[in-house]
């Protein structure tokens, strides 16, 4: 073997000591939010199933989903949904070979973060008024 110093050589920067660039953080968050949305999606299906089952079971399911914990999950899922949506739009833009240079990609990262928070607050306000 040419490399006898296996295991005791300098390694390339690893996740534990490497400060992730904003493009990497926003990229992994698209994956995390997308997969985390399963919880809210299943709760939504449960809500519809409960309504199809009758008034008593609907009152129970609706009560769980609009309890403080259900509200917390749904409120955070709105943020996850807008984040994943804007992150997806960014991927659609990149698929067209637009905005792949570092400066534009980093600006798009901040646009996704700020945009998703703004849309989330807007959604919460609309939901509270409605």
């Amino acid at each position, binding site marked *: 073997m040419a490399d006898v110093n296996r295991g005791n050589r300098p390694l390339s920067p690893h996740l534990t000591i490497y400060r992730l660039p904003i493009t990497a953080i926003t990229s992994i968050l698209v994956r995390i939010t997308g997969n985390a949305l*399963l919880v809210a999606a299943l709760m939504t299906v449960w809500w*519809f199933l409960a309504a*199809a089952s009758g008034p008593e079971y*609907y009152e129970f399911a609706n009560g769980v989903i609009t309890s403080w914990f259900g509200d917390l999950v749904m409120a955070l899922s709105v943020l996850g*949904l807008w984040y994943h949506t804007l992150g997806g739009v960014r991927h659609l833009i990149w698929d067209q070979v637009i905005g792949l240079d570092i400066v534009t990609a980093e600006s798009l990262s901040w646009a996704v973060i700020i945009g998703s928070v703004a849309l989330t607050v807007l959604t919460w306000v609309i939901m509270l008024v409605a």
Partner: protein
Amino acid sequence: MAYLTPRKRATGMGSAKSGVEHFWNMKVSSIGLLILVPLFLFTFGPALGSSYEEMVAYYQHPFPAIVAILTLSVGFMHFKNGFQVLIEDYVHGAAGQYSIIAMNCLCYAAAATGIFSIIRIAL
């Protein structure tokens, strides 16, 4: 086979024996969801927490019911494909295959349950 040219035998057979169908599915469903998600959010959101009578009356209207059916069907297929990429990236071997199969079952079951329920409420 002797009559087929190498080009003819290779056409449509990428390195994974399939082309960009998965990527294309994700792309098409994402554009669909771009339209459906805001429509669903602002029809489902206000209905959440309403009384049984209000909820049933609301989802007997065609628009919120159709939006909900489309969002659940396209959404769960998009989720199924997205979850497959997550597993293929991080989990290898049999465990990964079982996870993908299990999530396929869950996604189809959840989509079917949701669609059945909405149709039952609406009709």
